[in-house]
């Protein structure tokens, strides 16, 4: 009866059976997807477990206060100069890029969003965000190391700045654009000039978003190795901005194939410190981001 009715109306068979081939195929594919998703999480946990397992034992006061050991020193030593070097170079990069990026973003979002130069600048920033990090190092080498004649923390900072700029610029533009129009118009209605409405109304409202972008850019820059390899290279001594400067990332790279067990342990410990630092920065940016969305 039912069948004849279906035939009359030319309806396909809409009933589902759990064991027909297409249902089985669906179940199979779902299983594969779940397995893939679990497999993709494995590296993250494996990395974290290994960092704690191999580097955790070295987390003590000495790690943060002492200088790196030589290859013949079988225990002790720390990574204080690398931590300071990383902070110093990321700091330089932030000092260069925050005003640079935010001012350009203001123009892109507010003063001339549809102008030709804005389109080109936006495109340049997007292109730069895809630039291989080693190219930033090559660039800093060409303009800083060759002209100054030596490797320095300044050159490292410039290389990191090239990498941070696009992130800061593009996120700042997005958040400035998201400030409601009526806020700006209220400022104009009070007789503000466009710059006053920008600095007194729009920027304070967009600040959390801009900070999110800055923190993300800092987190990324802190872990970058390639741009520092031949701009700041490495040093076993305390920070001297005009000389080669140590950084966490390059320390990990240099000690990663060291024959000295002590240095290798320090590489793991430095990785742990670096990953914890980067994760904290990521959490902070997420926290600021989620707080402002409400």
């Amino acid at each position, binding site marked *: 009866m039912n069948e004849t009715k279906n035939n009359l109306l030319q309806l396909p068979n809409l009933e589902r059976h759990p064991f027909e081939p297409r249902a089985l195929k669906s179940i199979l594919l779902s299983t594969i997807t779940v397995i893939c998703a679990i497999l993709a999480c494995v590296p993250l946990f494996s990395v974290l477990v290994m960092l704690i397992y191999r580097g955790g034992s070295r987390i003590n006061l000495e790690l943060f206060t002492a200088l790196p050991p030589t290859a013949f020193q079988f225990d002790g030593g720390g990574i204080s100069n690398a931590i300071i070097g990383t902070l110093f170079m990321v700091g330089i990069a932030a000092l260069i890029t925050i005003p640079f990026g935010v001012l350009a973003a203001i123009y892109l979002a507010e003063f001339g969003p549809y102008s030709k130069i804005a389109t080109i*600048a936006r495109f340049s920033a997007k292109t730069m965000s895809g630039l291989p990090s*080693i190219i930033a190092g090559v660039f800093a080498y*060409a303009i800083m190391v060759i002209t100054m004649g030596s490797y320095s923390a300044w050159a490292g900072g410039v290389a990191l700045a090239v990498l941070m700029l696009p992130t800061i610029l593009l996120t700042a533009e997005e958040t400035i654009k998201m400030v409601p129009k009526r806020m700006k118009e209220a400022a104009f209605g009070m007789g503000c000039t466009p710059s006053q409405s920008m600095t007194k109304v729009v920027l304070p409202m967009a600040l959390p978003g801009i900070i999110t972008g800055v923190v993300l850019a800092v987190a990324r820059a802190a872990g970058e190795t390639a741009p520092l390899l031949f701009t700041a290279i490495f040093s076993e001594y305390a920070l001297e901005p005009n000389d080669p400067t140590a950084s966490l*990332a390059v320390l990990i790279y240099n000690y*990663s194939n060291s024959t000295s067990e002590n240095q290798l342990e320090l590489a793991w410990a430095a*990785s742990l410190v670096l990953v914890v630092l980067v994760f904290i920065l990521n959490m902070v940016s997420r926290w600021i981001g989620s707080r402002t969305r409400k």
Partner: protein
Amino acid sequence: MAAENGEESILNHAETLAAPPTPVDKIFDKCFRTLTFVFTWATVLLLAFIVFRIGGQALPAMKEYGPGLLFSSDWDVNNNQFGIWPQIWGTLYSSLLALVLGGFFGITIAIFLTQDFLPHKLEMVLKNIVELLAAIPSVVYGLWGIYVLIPLLQPTADKLHSSFGWFPLFSTSFSGFGMFSAALVLSIMILPTIAAISQDALRAVPRRTKEAAFGMGATRWEAILRVILPTASGGISGALVLGLGRALGETMALAMLVGNSATVSLSLFSPASTLASLLALNFPEADLNQTGVLMYAACTLLLITLVVNMLGTLIINTTTTKGGER
């Protein structure tokens, strides 16, 4: 009349904030606008300057060696013979391998996260985990690759080589450092990029398209494979191209894992070298002549990644605007 009186009384109120801009305000406004304009230009000029500076440094080497350098495989510092074909090959081969693996996992995860497989809370947790994968610095992945991944792969790779040694992919014995380990780590690194952009593309598929498929009696996977994925294919291909761009430029994990030997081989287990790792390893101790050649290699890398990234951005831009209109 009464209203006018009311307005007047507000305007006459001594503490009103509204005021026309003073001359100082106007000058400040002009300066501030000019400043933002200057920095916008500076962004464009910075990119131009990067290309110009690296190109300028590479020019002498380009003149001396010509395009032949790209296709030669001799690297002999003492006789001033240079060729970067093995590096170009290694860059492309490792990136493509990583793209196949990372692309498969990335798209699968994007489907898993967007097609209502999980409750929303779990979805967010998994999304955050995948994003954290991208936050781990590549040098840490390199360290992890050397001491965790390579020992883990060794037995399987040895077995594959001894049983399927005739197959070109497995034709060299596995020494740990090589294409396979490098490409595997690389695929983990590009997975978050691909997953994130693919998720955006999948979320942009209109709900009614999906529901039309379900209404026709499609199973979940029939709807995904025949309706949702084709609709989102533009954005997903953009994601793949941008993932490829990241893989091409990645340096540290490769420099630490790829073995850095100028070999051109199809074998997964053979050590190799890439443009980025060549730069990373040779720059610190290069003399003037070699610096020119390395700048040439940097130019090549820059060109490849620029083209790939522009292509990716273009694909995403064109397909997402179309998606919005639909």
